[in-house]
């Protein structure tokens, strides 16, 4: 088999997990777009083009996992803040549980080749 290209490998890993990273960043407090995007960008390899987060946020809002509210900003115009809905919280909790099981299983296989 051809060695997987690093780019496409990361793209595939990102695809299913990025939205939960966004939800996780909103777990403790609402954030405005720029702040949210920069926090995600700080995590290595998660975001290559910051702008691609906005279509995802739009999806999350339409799916009812996130809502937006406007808040005054200390500097400049009011900002749109994203916050979790209770449904978003449930989705994040479910993902967290499944993710732990999933990574445990994968870790196990990667480290020991599946031997007990």
């Amino acid at each position, binding site marked *: 088999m051809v060695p997987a290209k690093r780019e496409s490998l990361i793209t595939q890993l990102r695809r299913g997990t990025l939205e939960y990273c966004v939800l996780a960043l909103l777990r403790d407090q609402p954030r405005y777009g720029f*702040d949210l995007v920069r926090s995600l*960008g700080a995590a290595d390899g998660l975001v290559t083009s910051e702008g691609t987060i906005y279509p995802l946020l739009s999806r999350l809002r339409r799916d009812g996992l996130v809502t937006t509210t406007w808040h005054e900003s200390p500097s400049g*115009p009011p900002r749109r803040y994203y916050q979790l809905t209770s449904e978003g919280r449930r989705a994040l909790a479910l993902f967290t549980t499944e993710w732990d099981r999933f990574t445990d299983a994968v870790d196990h296989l990667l480290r020991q080749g599946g031997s007990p």
Partner: protein
Amino acid sequence: MTTEVDALVLRYLQDLEGELRDLPANRRQELLDEVGEHIAAARAALDPETEAGVRTVLERLGDPADIAAEARERVGVQRPPVRPATPWLEVIAIVLLVIPFAGWVVGVVLVWLSRLWTTRDKLIGTLGGMSWVLAGLGTVMTSAGGSRAVGSAPLGPSETSLMAVVLVAAPFVLPVVAAIYLGFRLRGRDAAASAPPS
């Protein structure tokens, strides 16, 4: 300085708008607003605001085409399918076919000009559009046969009137039938053309 930077930002947002044109209008506006707010917040965080700084902000946002691709995927919009252009010639031909007299003639001519129908389709269209010729010939022969009334048995009055009704109605009914048939053939072609390649 500020105006140069503003122009840079404006151009970026215009590019993005262009890339997003196949998205529903409300989604497109939403994304443009949010990216615009992102840029505004990022610019406010620059101290001092330099052109290089703003360029970096735009670079980090990424290529508008990438954002649009992501949007299509997240929103579930297909890349604009290569829709076959509306076959105007064929549509006009079909419409003309059901318009008596001049329409029948011009309709048949257009049917033959089309490259979308097969020869068989065209023959059926012609038969429909030209059925008045057949009906005319039929009428002449019937009346001639009726007046001659030698050899073959003459037609009874009820048969004659039935024949007359058929001959009068045929030029009006057959073109409609042919037009409907040609319309179906056209739709079949569209469905086949737009079917995704496997």
